[in-house]
């Protein structure tokens, strides 16, 4: 399972993950509480400049950018139709700023670095029984089995196609789910032996 992280190094890769997360949180909150078009325009231009400064690293974000453009266009048309052009501008500027910064953070921050920040953030929850190490283990298990279940789905689909000449579509959802539940029982036994809990 690949991450959206870009191996093409940029200046933003050098900024620590926690600093980028704090910046994103402050930006998102700040933009949410302002309705001033000038402020939002300046923020959007700054965010766009930061995003464009990442150069080649942004190439893999094309599908996301297309989706964002469509969403912005739809919202703008919706508000313009209601004679609320000011609201259209404010909403689109907010969306563009926060989305571009979110994507920039994802592109320039390794999965492991973000996980480390999340673990640090979750560490106070240890007192109420939520372990940050458990989160890491669960993420690892999830990623391992995403690939496994995808292969399983393809096998089931192929088998159905051979039998009927058509794709399995929703008919293989139940067998896939049952296989998942059976696999979970096996994994639980293995974890019990290893973790003793």
């Amino acid at each position: 399972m690949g991450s959206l992280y870009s191996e093409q190094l940029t200046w933003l890769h050098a900024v620590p993950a926690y600093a980028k997360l704090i910046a994103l949180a402050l930006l998102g909150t700040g933009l949410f509480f302002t309705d001033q078009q000038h402020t939002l325009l300046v923020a959007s231009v700054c965010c766009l400049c930061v995003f464009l400064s990442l150069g080649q690293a942004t190439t893999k974000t094309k599908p996301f950018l297309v989706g964002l453009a469509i969403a912005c266009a739809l919202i703008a048309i919706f508000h313009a139709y209601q004679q609320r052009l000011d609201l259209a501008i404010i909403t689109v500027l907010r969306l563009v700023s926060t989305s571009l910064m979110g994507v920039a953070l994802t592109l320039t921050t390794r999965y492991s670095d973000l996980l480390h920040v999340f673990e640090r953030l979750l560490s106070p929850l240890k007192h109420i029984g939520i372990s940050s190490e458990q989160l890491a283990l669960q993420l690892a298990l999830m990623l391992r089995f995403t690939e496994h279940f995808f292969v399983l789905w393809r096998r089931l689909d192929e088998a159905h196609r051979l039998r009927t000449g058509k794709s399995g579509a929703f008919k293989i959802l139940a067998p896939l789910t049952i296989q998942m539940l059976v696999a979970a029982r096996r994994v639980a036994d293995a974890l019990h032996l290893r973790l003793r809990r």
Partner: protein
Amino acid sequence: MHNSSRSLALVSLFAALIAVFGLIPKIDLPLGVPITLQTLGVMLAGCLLGPKRALQALMLFLAAVALGLPLLSGGRGGLGVFFAPASGYLIGWPVGAFVTGLIMALLPTAAPRSAAISAFVASAVGGLLVVHVFGVVGLVNIANLSWEQALMGTLVFVPGDLIKCALCATVVHTVARGLPDWRFGG
């Protein structure tokens, strides 16, 4: 019974199943209506895992998305998706799964048929109603739509989601027959 290991495995593997639902191409129903499966995963999580584990599975899945993994349908992921107009629906997933599980735990599930009917009701309330309420709140706050506009926008997806509730009931019915000792609703 090693409950902690069981929870850990179920939560992780169900989150993986929801991720796979995002990788499966859209399914065309007989009338040509295309549906994507990840919201079905929300409904199934509640029905099969119970409220607490379903909530954890969806939180884990969204944490993986936030960490940048392209697990949402269409290969989307990263923090940017939480600022998009439809992010209300995403945030509603864990709550929807929790409510689905809560209702499933209260309804009869002893026989496959009763489990399927309960699953339909639970997923219609949790996976459909609750998720759409969050979606509408998101559209109002992020896309600045009025309540009426947001409601009209979300109603378009209700027929497709009702089909998913029926699919969820069918899967639960098959699981009840295939794994008779499975405890629905946790």
